[in-house]
C-alpha cells in the first residue's frame, strides 16, 4: 500500500460518521491494509463478545430434532435438553413396547377375545418405562447425576413425562386399531389403571429403588388379573368396569397427593 487512511478518516469510519463514499473507500482499503486495520479503534469487550458468540455458533453441537421440536413447542431450552436426553435411556424399552403392542394388535385381529391380551398389557407399558427411567443400575450416568441440584423428584418427574408421552401415544394408537372399537371408553379404558400404577410406582420410589417399585406394582397387577380369572364367573375385564374405573381414579388422586407431598418435602 502506497497510502494509508488518515486518523480523521479512520475515526469517522469507526464511529459511522463518514459519508457513504468515504466509508466504502475506507472499507475497501481496510480489507487489504493490515497497517490501517491495526490503527482502527476497537471496542475490546464488544470484540470478545462477538468472538464468543461466533465460537458458540460454530462450535456448539447441533441440537437433536427432538430438542428442536420441544424448543419450538415453547419449552425452556434447558428443559428441552433434559427431556431430549431421556429417550436415550429407554431405547430398548421403546423398541420392546412397539413390538409388544404390534404383537397384541395382530393377535387381537386373529383370535377370539384377543383384545384381552392388549387390555392386560397396555396398563403395564408406561409402568415399565418409568421404572427404568431413573436410578442406579438403569441410568448409566446416575452416579454423576444423583449429586446435582436436579437430582431427585424433579428429574424423576421430568423423565416420567418423557416416558409417558410416547407410551400413552403408542397405547392409544394400538387401542384405536383394535377390532370393533366404537366408543371413547373402548379406546382409553386402560388409561386410568396405567396412570394409577405409574403413580403407585413413583410413590413407592420413596422407600425402594424405582425398578423394584415397578416390579412390586407390576406383580400386584398380575395378581389382580389372576385372581379375577380364577374366581368363578368373574371376567378379568371387570378391572376396567365403570365401578373399577372409579376406584382407579380415586387411587390415582390419592397417590398424586402423596407424590406432591413428597416433592414438597423432599
Amino acid at each position, binding site marked *: 500500500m502506497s497510502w494509508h487512511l488518515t486518523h480523521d478518516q479512520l475515526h469517522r469510519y469507526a464511529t459511522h460518521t463518514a459519508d457513504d463514499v468515504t466509508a466504502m473507500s475506507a472499507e475497501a482499503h481496510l480489507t487489504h491494509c493490515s497497517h490501517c486495520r491495526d490503527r482502527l479503534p476497537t471496542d475490546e469487550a464488544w470484540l470478545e463478545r462477538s468472538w*464468543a*458468540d461466533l*465460537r*458458540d455458533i460454530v*462450535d*456448539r*453441537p447441533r441440537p437433536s430434532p427432538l430438542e428442536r421440536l420441544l424448543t419450538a413447542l415453547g419449552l425452556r*431450552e*434447558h428443559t428441552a*435438553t*433434559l427431556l431430549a*436426553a431421556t429417550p*436415550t*435411556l429407554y431405547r430398548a424399552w421403546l423398541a420392546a413396547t412397539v413390538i409388544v403392542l404390534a404383537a397384541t394388535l395382530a393377535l387381537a385381529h386373529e383370535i377370539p377375545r384377543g383384545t384381552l391380551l392388549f387390555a392386560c398389557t397396555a396398563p403395564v407399558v408406561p409402568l415399565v418405562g418409568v421404572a427404568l427411567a431413573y436410578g442406579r443400575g438403569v441410568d*448409566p*450416568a446416575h*452416579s*454423576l*447425576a*444423583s*449429586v*446435582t*441440584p*436436579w*437430582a*431427585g423428584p424433579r*428429574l424423576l418427574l421430568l423423565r416420567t413425562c418423557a416416558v409417558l408421552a410416547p407410551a400413552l401415544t403408542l397405547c392409544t394408537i394400538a387401542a384405536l386399531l383394535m377390532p370393533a372399537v366404537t366408543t371413547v371408553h373402548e379406546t382409553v379404558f386402560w388409561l386410568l389403571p396405567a396412570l394409577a400404577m405409574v403413580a403407585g410406582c413413583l410413590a413407592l420410589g420413596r422407600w425402594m429403588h424405582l425398578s423394584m417399585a415397578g416390579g412390586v406394582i407390576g406383580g400386584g397387577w398380575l395378581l389382580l388379573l389372576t385372581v379375577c380369572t380364577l374366581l368363578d364367573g368373574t371376567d378379568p375385564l371387570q378391572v376396567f368396569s365403570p365401578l373399577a374405573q372409579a376406584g382407579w381414579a380415586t387411587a390415582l388422586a390419592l397417590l398424586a397427593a402423596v407424590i406432591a407431598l413428597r416433592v414438597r*418435602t*423432599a
Partner: protein
Amino acid sequence: MTTTSPRNGVRARGLVRTYGTRRALDGVDLDLGPGVTGLLGRNGAGKTTLLRCLATDLEATDGELSVLGRDPERAAERTEIRRRLGYLPQNPSFYPHFTTFGLLDYMAVLKERGGRRERHDEVRRALRRVDLYDRRHTRLRRLSGGMRQRLGLAAALLGDPHLLLLDEPTIGLDPEQRIRFRDLVSELAVHSTVLLSTHQIEDVAALCRRVLVLDQGRVIFDGTPAALIARARGRVWEQGTRPPRNVTSWRLADGRHRVLVPEGVHNPDSDERVPVEPSLEDAYLLLTGAVPR
C-alpha cells in the same frame, strides 16, 4: 444434625453408615477445609461410602454432618450443597452415544449452570482443563479409559465447586496426565476443599498437606504425610536375606528385600541389614498392616 462446618468445608461427628448389619462407617469424626486432603485405606475400608455421604448421594445412618455450612438432610440445603459440589465417583460411566461436549452440557444443565451461551463456554473451559477440547465432538464409546476418567473430572469441575470429592481420580491416567491432574487439583485447592480418595500413594505424597487413613470404617490416622512417615522411622530396612514371615517384605529389583517391621515384632539381625528412610507408602503399609507376602 446440629453441627455446622465452615462455608467451604466439611464437619462430621460420629458419622455412621450401615449396610444391613455391616458398619461401613463407624463413628467418623472429620473437619475439612481448603486444601487437598488425601484419603487412604484398603478396599472396603469405607472410603467410597464416606465420599458418597459427603456428596449427598447417601444418607448417614447416624451422627452429625455439615457440608459447606449446610445440613444435607434438609432438601433445600442439600440442593444448595449440590450447587457448589464437584464429585467424581469411582469408575464413572456415561451414555455411550453422547459426545464429550453433549455429556458435559447435559451435566451443566443438571447443575443449573446459566443460559446456553454461558453454559457452553463453561463446558469448553472444563474440556480444555482436562485436555479433551480436541475430542469435544467424539462419542463417548470411542474414548479410552483414561479419557473417560478425565471427562468425569471435567464434569466434577463444572460450576467451580467449593468442595471437590474425588474417588480414585487417577486410575487409567498416563504419567503425563497425572502430572497435569496434580497441577489442576493444586490450583483448585487454593480456594476449594478437595478430598482425594486413592490407592496411589505417590499422588497423596505429591498433593496433600494432610492425610486421613480409614480402616474398617474408622479414622486410624489424621495428620500430615510427614507425621505419618515419622511413625515409620526405624522400622524400615533393606537386607540381603528374606525376613521371617511375620513381617511385611518384598523383593527389590536388585535382589535385596525391603522389610517393614511392625511395632512389637522382632526382625532378627541379618547380614548387610541397613535402615532406610521410610516412604509414605511404607508408613501407610505399616499403619494398616497390609501387603501379605
